[in-house]
């Protein structure tokens, strides 16, 4: 019952936040110079006033701002994200076509960075002060400090061009016509570089966080209790420290999940990954507002959802939550 109530409350809050994000962005976008009609005219390589006026009327851009906002909100609430000015396709179709790619990429980067980060962080904390610790932490620091696109360029140069191990871009072998398992393997193969590129920065973050959290928990009283019970060090780390230390890492990770989508803009650009990060960037450059707003709405919804799921999991993992409210 409590969980259900929690769920309803959180969903209401989530809806509110997403709506807020949409309004905020809608207003923000109005500040941009140039409107979609001008961009389309520019792209068409020609255009006269009549052409631009036609487009404006068609997009409803000749309406006053509040009318545009209201009708947009109305549409959104009824599940209609509008029509892409530039592509002349429903925004929802466009996003749905590209969302899976981004979810796959960010999801695997998230898992990759979380798992690797935690493993490395635990190792570093366990071997605190050793050479291994120093190596891990130095590595983490360097990946933390390296621009993502730089890693991407280098990775392509080394692993695709020189070593020819991994495909440098695309999500799958186009035109190869793989199906079933072969296709899965093909996509997995293509997924490696972008995942690692996008994930390395966060791996560094989680490594550092895990290590700090582990060290902090190791200082807590109950660890001393466990030692006093005669629990061996390995078991103390696994059973007592790790579980307690990982919770803050998870919390942080769930908040950070959204940031991965931001990083995906760059990764998708370099790796020609057909995701919504790139869609957003193109839509922005082309003033394709409905698409831009749609992407923001969907990413906001995804982020909120991820946080919600994380909170729910948290309630199962940490028995204290329920009373803390």
């Amino acid at each position, binding site marked *: 019952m409590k969980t259900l109530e929690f769920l309803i409350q959180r969903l209401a809050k989530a809806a509110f936040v997403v709506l807020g994000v949409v309004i905020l962005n809608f207003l923000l976008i109005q500040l941009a110079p140039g409107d979609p009609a001008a961009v389309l005219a520019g792209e068409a390589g020609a255009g006269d006033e009549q052409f631009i006026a036609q487009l404006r009327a068609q997009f409803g851009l000749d309406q006053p701002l509040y009318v545009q906002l209201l009708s947009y909100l109305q549409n959104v609430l009824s599940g209609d994200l509008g029509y892409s000015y530039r592509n002349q396709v429903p925004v929802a179709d466009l996003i749905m076509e590209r969302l899976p790619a981004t979810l796959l990429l960010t999801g695997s980067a998230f898992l990759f960075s979380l798992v690797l980060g935690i493993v490395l962080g635990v190792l570093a904390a366990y071997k605190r002060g050793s050479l291994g610790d120093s190596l891990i932490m130095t590595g983490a620091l360097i990946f933390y400090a390296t621009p993502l696109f730089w890693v991407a360029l280098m990775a392509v140069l080394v692993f695709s061009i020189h070593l020819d191990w991994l495909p440098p871009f695309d999500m799958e072998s186009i035109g190869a016509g793989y199906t079933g398992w072969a296709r899965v393997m093909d996509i997995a193969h293509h997924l490696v570089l972008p995942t690692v590129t996008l994930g390395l920065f966060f791996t560094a973050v989680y490594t550092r966080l895990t290590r700090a959290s582990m060290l902090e928990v190791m200082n807590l009283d109950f660890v001393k209790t466990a030692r006093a019970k005669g629990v061996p060090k390995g078991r103390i780390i696994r059973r007592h420290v790790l579980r307690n230390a990982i919770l803050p890492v998870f919390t942080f990770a769930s908040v950070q999940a959204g*940031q991965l989508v931001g990083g995906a803009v760059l990764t998708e650009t370099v790796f020609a990954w057909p995701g919504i990060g790139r869609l957003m960037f193109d839509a922005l450059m082309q003033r394709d507002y409905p698409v831009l707003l749609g992407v923001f709405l969907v990413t906001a919804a995804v982020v909120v959802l991820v946080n919600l799921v994380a909170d729910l999991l948290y309630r199962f993992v940490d028995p204290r939550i329920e009373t803390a409210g």
Partner: protein
Amino acid sequence: MSFLRRYAQNVGALIGLAILVVVVLVALAAPVLYPVSPWQGVGEPLLGPFEDPAYPLGTDLLGRDIAAGIAYGARVSLLIGIISTAVAVVIGVALGALAGFYGGRVDDMLMRFTEFFQTIPAFAMAVVLVAIFSPNITSITLAIAVVSWPPVARLVRGEFLSLRSREFVQAAVVVGQTGPRIMATQILPNAISPIIVTASLMVATAILTESSLSFLGLGDRNMMSWGFMIGAARTMLREAWWLSVFPGVAILVTVLAINLIGEGLNDAMNPHLRGRKG
């Protein structure tokens, strides 16, 4: 000054500080070292590093000196990093302090507002802001500030929330100090160390963000920045590696240094977390 001593005990932090001092000096001395604008072509185009001793890091395709670019780029990167962080910290501290100190509905409202900003991926938001306000140093700095304040606000809120109920704050209430005064003189000084630590890391992130924006073609075209240099030369990576490798290393080293400093500050300011070597 035990704080300084604790800081000085941390070798990494000292190295970081030394590097940053060098970077700052280079930034300050740029106009003296390279009196000609870094945009001015001075040598043969596309000289490799050390091909001509006058241009030890080589030249780009317009014959501009890479070394000069890196020196001037230090100014821009540091400027953007520091100012955007300062702005973000001011916004974050103001909102976080109000939310944490007054709690209740004020807190609710401010935190909802913060959530709007946190729900939008920071980098995507920065891209949109810069594109909308057209890329120049002001819009870039502000965009980075706008996307980086929420964590500060949350942090400060948390600190204020917990400090608010501390006895010395209650004592200030009891002796009759007013709310704003208590926030400014009693609570803030005690919340300052985590803020400084966070801020130092934010400077590093801001430098990275600027470079990523430049990479996407959203940099200020009048300011020679490291990110711009990489962004401009990235497609030439294989033809002329030095164009992007040197600024890349500059970013890496600077961000690394700032990080080391941040961690050093963190360790020095939170003695109980200090890891002892055994």
